[in-house]
Every structure is written in C-alpha cells, then in structure tokens.
C-alpha cells in the first residue's frame, strides 16, 4: 500500500533505513526522538510517502524536508528531497519500480502551484538517484554545486569596530524582524525565522552568533565542525550578513574554527550573491564539489533554472550538515 507516513511507522522506517543505508549505531537518526523530530516536529510540516506491507514492513520511501519560504514576495513551501530509499530486493528495479511509483505519488500529493502545493522541490541526489530521478521523476539540473573554502590562517579579515559579535545559546527574538527585512533582497529564500532555526539547530551541537551595530542586528552565522566532501571543515551553515558586519562575523567564525581545532572554513553560497565574491576577497577559494543541485518546479511561473539565479541558499538549507 502506498500512503503518507504516520508517526507509528517509526520502527519500520528505521529498520528500512538500517537495511538500506547500513547506518552506524550512533547515527543521529537512530537517537531517541530524532526520527519523530525530523518528520513530525518540522514547523513547515511533513512530507513523506511510503510503500508498506499490511504487516507494517516498509519497502520504499520518498520523503522531503519542507521549508517555509518567500517566493517573489509571497509565502510558499519548498521541499528538499531526503531519505528516499527502496529496501534491497524489494522496492528497486528500474523505471517501473516501486520506488518510482512512490516518488510519483509523493509528487502528486505535495507538489503544486504556489498556494496549492509545494512549487519547488530540490535536492542533491546521489548518482544512482540522479539517473532515476532524471528519467522518471522530473529532476532537472540547476547547477553544479561550488564550495567556498578558506584556510583559517590565510583569512584576511577586516573588522569594523562598530560591529559587535555575540555568541548565543538561543536565537534572539529580534531575528524575525531582521529576517523579514533581509529576505526582501532575494527573490527566493527559505525562512531564517527563530522558529525555523530553533527546529533546525537548537540542541544539536551548532554554534551561532549574531553581529550588531548600535544595537541593531546586522548578521547571523551558524557554524559547526563536520566531515564534508571528504574532510573535516568548520562549516558556515548559515551566513546572512550586512557588508558592515561581515568582517566581525568572519573573525568570530575564524576563532571558533581555531577553538574546534579545524583548519578550514567552508561555505556554500550562490555565485551571484554579494558574499560569494566578498569571501573570495577575504581569502576563500572556490572549489568544485561532488554535488549537483537538482530541482523540479510545480509552478510554471518559476522554472527550475530560475532558482539557480534567484534562490539564496546555504548549507543550512540542506540536511548535509
């Protein structure tokens, strides 16, 4: 039976995960409450379709993490495809496979014009999923993902005295009003509201700081040391900053990386945004990654390639860090 996932599918889902992905015992998803948090505590909702037997066994899943977003000035929901699976010897088998049928049902259930469904779904599929998705599920390449990488000792940081940086234990109330102004410079951006960031980062080992000038919020950074693209990096998961606070926030990130004993800072930003060049001037270099950003648009007003040039996104939008 193909249907939406339910909270009591947890045990079957985790068994399917273990069978498919050979999860380590200490994998984050296996921690108590993690699965429920991922699928049912997201403030933007739940997006998962499964194929399950009457005895509850899960054979295939197509899932996503929805994000509240702004799309040309109006509210929308974007969904990142994650955790899709087909249990070996059960759900696989080409374009007519159970996996594809589940994926198509997922698209029918959640995709749609803005206001009627999710207008944009996206992700970084592994190579095999890219091929299937391209052939059967409407995936289109949006861009080759590039990374900004800097050796901590090579950073040239110019700190403006007026900007103060404070590392916090919780996201401040002032964030929502600041984001509501900041987001207007982008035609498409997912929420960086307090609620969205709390769900995404709180209690999970991230460090975050804000930059202020004269008491006004000027920037936000969320960082974490993590293994990505084959090396341990200090990742700028979130990087939203005004130009007059960039240096101060970067200096904080550099010190945080040093404290973590990590030699490189790492970020993803769209090539067209101001900070893509500004960070290069500060000492970052642009590297290729193994990832290809793909997407599917469910609203003809915004083709997938439109998002390449208009959607501000960082690694914090993904589930990779």
């Amino acid at each position: 039976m193909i249907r939406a996932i339910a909270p009591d599918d947890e045990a079957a889902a985790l068994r399917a995960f273990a069978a498919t992905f050979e999860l380590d015992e200490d994998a984050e998803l296996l921690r108590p409450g993690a699965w429920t948090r991922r699928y049912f505590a997201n403030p933007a909702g739940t997006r998962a379709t499964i194929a399950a037997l009457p005895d509850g066994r899960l054979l295939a899943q197509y899932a996503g993490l929805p994000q509240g977003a702004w799309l040309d000035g109006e509210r929308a929901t974007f969904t990142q495809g994650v955790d899709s699976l087909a249990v070996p010897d059960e759900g696989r088998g080409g374009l007519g496979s159970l996996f594809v049928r589940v994926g198509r049902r997922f698209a029918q259930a959640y995709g749609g014009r803005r206001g009627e469904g999710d207008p944009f779904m996206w992700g970084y599929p592994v190579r095999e999923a890219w091929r299937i998705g391209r052939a059967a599920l409407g995936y289109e390449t949006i861009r080759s993902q590039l990374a900004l990488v800097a050796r901590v000792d090579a950073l040239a940081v110019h700190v403006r005295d007026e900007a103060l940086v404070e590392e916090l234990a919780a996201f401040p109330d002032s964030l929502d009003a600041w984001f509501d102004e900041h987001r207007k410079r982008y035609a498409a951006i997912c929420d960086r509201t307090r609620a969205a960031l709390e769900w995404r980062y709180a209690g999970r080992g991230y460090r975050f700081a804000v930059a202020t000038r004269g008491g006004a919020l000027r920037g936000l950074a969320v960082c974490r040391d993590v293994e990505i693209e084959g090396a341990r990096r200090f990742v700028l998961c979130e990087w939203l900053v005004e130009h007059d606070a960039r240096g101060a926030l970067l200096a904080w990130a550099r010190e945080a990386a040093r404290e973590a004993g990590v030699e490189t800072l790492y970020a993803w930003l769209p090539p067209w945004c101001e900070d893509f060049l500004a960070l290069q001037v500060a000492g970052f270099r642009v590297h290729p990654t193994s990832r290809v950003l793909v997407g599917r648009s469910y609203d003809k007003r915004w083709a997938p390639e439109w998002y390449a040039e208009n959607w501000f996104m960082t690694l914090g939008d993904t589930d990779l860090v």
Partner: protein
Amino acid sequence: MNRALEIRPLDAARDADSLLATWATVFGRERRRAEWEHQVLANPAGTRVFVATCDGRVVAQYAGVPTRVWIDGAERVFTQSVDSLVHPEFRKGLKRPGLFVDVARAYFDHYGVHGSDAVHYGWPLEAAWRIGKRFLEYECVREEVVLVRDLDAAPAEISAPEFTVQEVVPTGEELRWLWERCCGAWGASAIRDAAFYAWRFAGHADAAYRLLGARDAGGTLCGLAVLRRGDWLTPGSRALCDWLVPRVELAASRELEAAVLRAAERDGGHRVVTLIPEWSPHFLTLQERGWCVHPAPYRLAARCFDQRLDHLFLREHWWLTLADSDLA
C-alpha cells in the same frame, strides 16, 4: 499559411545566398559571407547544418560547429549548436511546436540519433533554452562561472624566469605534443592540433587572437595561451580563450599567466576573463594568483547521444574552454 516546406541538410552552393539573406532579416545585420564560409564550410571537423526551404528560399536553419574530441581512447565528434533561426514569416500560423523544432529534430536525428556525433552542446539564449528543454532534450550541464583577474593589481615580477614567453606560431607537432601532455588528465577534450588551431584562431574571419607560448631553455613549448584582442562581454575585458599547460608545468604556467596579463594590459584591457572547468587544478591555481570566480551569463546545455556519456560525465571530465565555443 500552408506552404510546402523541405527540411534537409544544407546544400551550400544552392542555399548560401538565401540563408544569408534570411540571417540578415532575422538578426537585423548582415553576416559576411567569408565569415560564414569560414565557420560553416572550412571547419576541419565538417559541417552540421539543416535548413528548411520554401519555394527554394531558406526560411529556417538549425546549425552546429563540430569538433573532433578525444574521449576514452577514441576520436568522437561533439557539436556546438549555434545560430539557429526561423524567418519571421514562418513563426506565425504554425502549430506548436513550430518550424524551429521541426528543423532541429531533423538535425538531431541525422547527426546524433542516426549519425555519429556523441554530444551536441551549447549556451542557448533563454528562449532557445526553454524550447530546447521542452522539445529537444536539452539538459543543463552547469551554470557557468568564469575566472576574472583585475589588472589594477599587476602580477609580481618574476625574478629569475625559467621560460621565454613570447608570441608563437606553434608547429602542428608542437601543438599536438603539448595537447597530449595535457589530455591524459582529461576525460574528454577537443583535439588541439594544427588544423583546429588554424581554423579556430589563425583563420578566424572576425576576431584576432594572440598566441603566447612559454618555451624552456631548450626551446620546447611547455605552455600555450590564446588571448583575444579587444573587448569581450564588457568594456575593458579581455578573453583568455585557451590555456594549454600541463599540470606539472607550474613555473611555465606562472610565467605564461604573467605574460597574458601584461599583454591584456598593453591591449588596453582592465581585466582578463577565462572559462576553465572547475575540476581542473588550474581553476584553483589561478585563484591562488589573484583570479576570482564570478557568475557568467551562460548555461551550458547538452544532449548526449551515447548512453555511456551523460551530463555528470561532461560536468566532471570534459576539458572545455572558450576555444570550444563561438562565444569569444
């Protein structure tokens, strides 16, 4: 409109005048016959043009520029789509998807599906991209980025140069040897030989190029750069069109790059722009020398006709520079 159309490969002797007249109507400017003949008829890799005619008049074309490509130990052909057009009279009154698509489908069937071309690619304008994606199986390989070096910060003087860098006219043997030293690290690359360089640069009808070569003390060519004279993309920008330097030749690379920047400055340029695949070590090396990565107004699109090739392969293994385009 219900007029008999014939869709077929170009017959240059019969179609040239009519094609160039339609070209002028569509693009609002004349195309010099010599320039057209050079691009279409003199290409050593062949000709790829389909036309639609009505009462003997060319009313549409889908065209490409083929290139001999070395891939997986064999020679194949990759073809860049260029200069597609439909006469305004034939854009109206036709059922979707229209004459453009009819000609393109015949072209792709002939050269790709039933022909020997492995890949057709290009950097389509937005309207062509939308139609191509919907009807012609265009897919995005990547959104291009370019490396840009501003010339306000001059390159450091090289105190003890190991190479002599000057304008060169490489022999075919030199060119082929240099390319073969490079291409071992590339999964696919247009063959840089005398025929290709003579056609692409020396004989170009509209643009002038400066070939700079780095020779070691024994006179061996260890690196080659091709700089286009005059503005490209924006005022003051000079295009570095080709960069043929084996990855182990770091000193030659440094000295050649410095010479390119000096030459661009002497030509009145304020910056140098180049397109180099992101996976190449040169992409990072040039950044370490002061080049920055900027977005480019180009989307690389491709259609693969060989199932062993796909867009991921092209993205990760195809050595592609401005030399492989008609952009500069």
